[in-house]
């Protein structure tokens, strides 16, 4: 259905049934041939044996055993989830008011300015942004200088190469991804609904709590999921700003591949995917009713 409504896609008649595979085929074959094959090889490798210097195609599953028994990995998983949850929480707390503020801008030039402010950092690579935070948060950097000038601290505060630094920088990277779904939903909300609430006697606060906020929930939910997933998958920011103290799965994956311990890397990769999908699945179940209720009203 297009924006004009009335026009449907035709059923693929016989002649056109030959065209469709030609259109979709290349992309599908490309993904199957490269992505799926690669993932398959990864999966197979996860079961192999690592001698300490090379991989042998012997099925032993010892990487799995190692992963699930060594308490180090439990702490890694904990670190991983902690980082993702904290980052997502901050992003939501900051992102929602930002999105709401943008919807209230009337002049189109200011709207464009707001979009530029929030979304243009996406045009630079994560390395540039991470390095930027290094500069700002370092011992001799901007923040510490400002704090010292204001006589708020006696000695430089440790803001990089730890969990705090990673969080600050990761929030910066992910905030646009949080704002976007929330903003989309807020913009799509029928403004006459708010007017109706006011007409029926609701104050601005009540209108927000009873109309705007509930209707924006799907956007918030999508933003939370997206941010969480991206935080879990983050590599560059924890690597450059963690100083080795923030050990998350993506770092280990790279490390193990570099060390030629492919089975272990593969297991960690599978664990990462499993962790992310389980979280999404569980949260979808938990919130299914609330999301469906809003969907009906659209």
């Amino acid at each position, binding site marked *: 259905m297009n924006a*004009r409504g*009335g026009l*449907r896609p*035709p059923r693929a*008649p016989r002649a056109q049934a030959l065209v469709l595979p030609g259109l979709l085929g290349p992309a599908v074959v490309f993904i199957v041939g490269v992505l799926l094959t690669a993932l398959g090889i990864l999966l197979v490798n996860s079961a192999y044996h690592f001698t300490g210097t090379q991989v042998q195609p012997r099925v032993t599953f010892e990487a799995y055993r190692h992963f699930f028994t060594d308490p180090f990995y439990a702490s890694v998983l904990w670190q991983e989830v902690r980082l993702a949850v904290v980052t997502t929480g901050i992003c939501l707390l900051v992102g929602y008011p930002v999105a709401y503020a943008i919807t209230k801008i009337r002049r189109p030039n200011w709207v464009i300015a707001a979009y530029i402010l929030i979304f243009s950092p996406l045009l630079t690579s994560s390395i540039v942004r991470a390095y930027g935070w290094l500069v700002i948060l370092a011992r001799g950097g901007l923040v510490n200088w400002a704090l010292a000038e204001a006589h708020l601290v006696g000695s430089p505060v440790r803001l990089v190469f730890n969990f705090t630094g990673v969080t600050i920088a990761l929030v910066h990277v992910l905030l646009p991804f949080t704002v976007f779904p929330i903003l989309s939903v807020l913009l799509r909300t029928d403004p006459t609904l708010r007017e109706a609430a006011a007409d029926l006697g609701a104050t601005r606060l009540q209108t927000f709590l009873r109309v705007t906020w509930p209707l924006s929930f799907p956007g918030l939910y999508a933003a939370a999921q997206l941010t969480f997933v991206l935080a879990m998958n983050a590599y560059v920011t924890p690597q450059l700003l963690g100083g080795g103290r923030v050990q998350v799965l993506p770092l280990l994956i790279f490390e193990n591949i570099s060390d030629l311990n492919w089975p272990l890397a593969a297991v960690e990769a599978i664990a990462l995917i499993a962790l992310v999908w389980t979280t999404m699945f569980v949260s979808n179940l938990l919130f299914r009713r609330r999301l469906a209720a809003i969907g009906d009203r659209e």
Partner: protein
Amino acid sequence: MGTTGRAEASATPAVELQQVHKRFGQVHAVRGVSLRIRENEFFSLLGPSGCGKTTVLRMISGFEVPTEGSLYLQGRLANTIPPYRRDTNLIFQHLALFPHLDVYDNIAFGLRLRRLPRDEIARKVRASLDLVDLAGYESRRIHQLSGGQKQRIAIARALINQPAVLLLDEPLGALDLRLRMQMQVELKEIQHRVGTTFIYVTHDQTEAMTMSDRIAVMNHGVVEQIGTGRDVYERPRTRFVATFLGDSNLIDARVERREPEQTVLRAGDQRLVAPADHAAGPGAAVTLCVRPERLRLVTPIDAPAPAGYENRVPARVHDVIFKGAFIEYRLTTGSGASMIAQAHANGSPAIAREGAVAATWRRDDGVVLTE
């Protein structure tokens, strides 16, 4: 089929549908439609939204393939011929003028595909712009045009290809009333000048009656009646046609007896006379349809009716509505039914509310509907 005086039944119709069906999954959008549209005819498909008229049009233009039945264009079976190989052109509901091309390129689009020489194309484009009264508009961009101008460019773009059949899908819907009426007249003129068969889809009965040689009234995928505007209005075949075109008074009645020249009906305790051109026998339940403008109200209630006005129903005036050129009376009959009567506002005093009247009409003013 409707009544016509022309003896062209043997000429090849421009478009013919024979028992055409179209299903979309579970939806049976077109059910057994048969039509024969003549060359040079202005033919309308009239009906409410969802009646299937647009689907029929899209099958004729080639964007839908009939599920069952046969479609003939100029006598050739055309069910599966793709749109770019049919000698038809469609004016889309939202016109579909290419925004990335100017007026000249839009109009020349079809000709360029046929690789006509450049100067011939230029000549034809100029001529077609003259035809629609927009000479000199060649380099305008589409977004610079008004609604009426876009309309005419769409027509020019289609007609320049000299199709055997021009199809129009509710093209005037987006225009305001005045412009719409003006365009109706212009379209009719263009059709006369060019002589192409026009098939016009609309839900507006006034529009259909104004422009068409013949109308097919559709409802729920079925053609209920085909005929000239006058046929369809004055002698509707079904309740739907009677109520879709104009207002009607519908009276439920039973056939008491049939006579050679008339039918005697009984409605409640009333005896009414109606024409005999229907198939219902004695005892059958029918609907008598009388148009509001055919009713003559006489007051007081026992005053004599004009000569020939045999039917008489006592009623009370419930409401009087002044509608400019005529006055509409809403009546409540003795048995509690509602009727509408229409009288010319010719200056004579209107009947007051609560007035007691007799609604009268001639035998041949009524139509007996069996469906």
